[in-house]
């Protein structure tokens, strides 16, 4: 196999990786103009021995969201292949709407809708409270990412929602949006 370039996403950034020598044990890649060579020996399904410049690491990895969750030296990386169309790491903030580029307000965690502050058709300002999600006995407020109009509400108070389920569809009012 010759040289090959793959793109991976971690912490919101795409990084191309040139794979130079995909031999079973010694692995050489070029990342950001740095060439790294490591000896890798799989120990079990989730565990690898990695040797780099004489330093030994035990690496743990599982498949996650089409990519991998990797434990290395006390750090945990979620790395996704870029061509899968998925984003690497979720954005900070309770609402993932911007990550997906649509107007769907999703549940940031599984839980119960404790209180809805808005009605369908209502105008809301940016940062206005939309609903309270109760999970693990804590209340978590979900706010509007931008100003807009509530198009549709998919759940009522006291209903249970799973992680990532769309709770509210919004139409944004600014012209730069896709409203």
């Amino acid at each position, binding site marked *: 196999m010759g040289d090959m370039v793959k793109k991976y996403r971690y912490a919101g950034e795409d990084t191309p990786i040139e794979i130079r020598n995909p031999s079973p044990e010694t692995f050489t890649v070029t990342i950001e103009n*740095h060439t790294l060579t490591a000896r890798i020996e799989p120990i079990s399904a*989730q565990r*690898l021995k990695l040797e780099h410049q004489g330093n030994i690491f035990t690496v743990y990895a*599982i498949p996650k969201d089409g990519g991998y969750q990797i434990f290395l030296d006390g750090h*945990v990386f979620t790395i996704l292949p870029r061509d899968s169309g998925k984003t690497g790491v979720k954005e*900070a903030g309770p609402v993932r709407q911007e990550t997906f580029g649509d107007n769907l307000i999703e549940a940031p965690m599984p839980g119960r809708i404790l209180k809805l502050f808005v009605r369908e058709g209502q105008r809301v300002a940016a940062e206005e409270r939309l609903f309270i999600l109760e999970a*693990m006995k804590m209340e978590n407020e979900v706010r509007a990412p931008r100003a807009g109009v509530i198009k549709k509400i998919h759940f009522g108070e006291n209903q249970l929602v799973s992680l990532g389920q769309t709770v509210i569809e919004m139409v944004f009012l600014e012209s730069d949006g896709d409203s």
Partner: protein
Amino acid sequence: MKRTRSSVTGRSLRGSTHRIERLLIANRGEIARRVIQACKELGIETVAVYSEVDRHAPHVLDADRAVEIGPAPPTESYLNMDRIIEAAKQTRCQAIHPGYGFLAENAEFARRCKAEGLIFIGPGPEAMALVGDKLKARQTVATAGVPIIPGMESRATDAAAIQAIADEIGFPIMIKAAAGGGGKGMRIVRDMQELQPALEAGRREAQAAFGDDTVYLEKFIERPRHVEVQVLADQHGNVVHLFERECSIQRRHQKIIEESPSLALDDTLRQTMGLTACRVMQAVGYTNAGTVEFLLDPDKNFYFLEVNARIQVEHPVTEMVTGIDLVKQQIRIAAGEPLPFSQAQIQPKGHAIECRIYAEDPENQFLPSIGKLEYVQEPQGAGIRCDSGIYPGMEVTHYYDPILAKVVVWDEHREAAIAKMIHALSQYVILGIQTPIPFLIELLSHSEFRKGNLHTHFLEEHFSGWKPKPGETIRRLAFLVAAYLDSRPRGIAVPAEEHRIPTPWETLGNWEMLV
């Protein structure tokens, strides 16, 4: 293998003896396992209870017997008093240990256990009801000469009355649940406009968590330390303290790192606070293990906060520095035994730190992170203790408090203990969900933490909007590993049966056994 059974027998003040041969643990997770361990060491048989989703949970597997008590929602299982008492009677237990959370500080449950002839491992229902009512507790300890934070002295519900009180106390103000604990129902209010919405949210959270929506107001003290004192009180009038724990590192009013001793206390203040804690427990008529929480302001004035009428999450820190097993002492005290040591015999040694490992995402406001634990490997080594309730393949659900495990270390002094904790956390592998482990490693390495300049808003001050900052080489090696895994024909998505480790008999080959 047949194990020898014994029991714990004590004599109470009134002369009646109690024998505990079998004990039911009305809890789950790491604390249920901790209590089971103590019971087994005392020769007491253990009965676990579990909800439908916890059928294979470690606490069930650890116990001698187990009783299913209902569906996953806590109100139908771990909070279901009827079902738990029935299970205890059915299995002929003499005692119930409530752990922390759930029914641990429910005076009604303690009362019902007593009425049913079951020993409740904790304080009596009267003391529990008294300290459980934060307002009454404030009044009682103030009468005993213990300093309290200025605030509401009565329960008011009328909006105008509360506003008047708020004006008198002066902003910023802290809203707290009268039945509270664990940060639930708590809100900081900085001006009158925020008061009403914060009261409403506080009441709702208090109602959901404790079934009582009473909240009260206290003056909010800026940059305080949270310092608490562990107390043991037997049924013969002996009360001792086991020194302090500093628990200032908190997020959302919940502790995540605890240590003992506190750098903020000198021997004089340590002794004063210890004796004050004993006086609090005497004033409220408390028996068994309990904690008196104080706020310590930057000028080293301390104020009574509340009594935690239970074994606490952070109890191992005290166990490490005193060498005293608090859970075994709880059981012995409840059986009526007198304390086996005097105050002078309790000597702290070295330094202990605990880190709580919650199922939560430090990059996303510490919101709960839920899912399947695909891989778990716990830290080990000299001076490292890991109390956990998890296993690979376990589903972390939203039904229960998101604590997965606690890592506790002991070393000769604080600096060594911090280094040991960083080492321990760097070995702790949990894959499948997000955990605060990388965050905790960075926090322990922070210069202000190392200097011991702690206060309860430490995280907001130094770590808001935290993102992991792995070194360049480590980050690139992680990419290398991802590329390596992709280059393998089937990556690491090995079919389930290949995860199995072959038995030595399968890998042994053609060997002959010589007898």
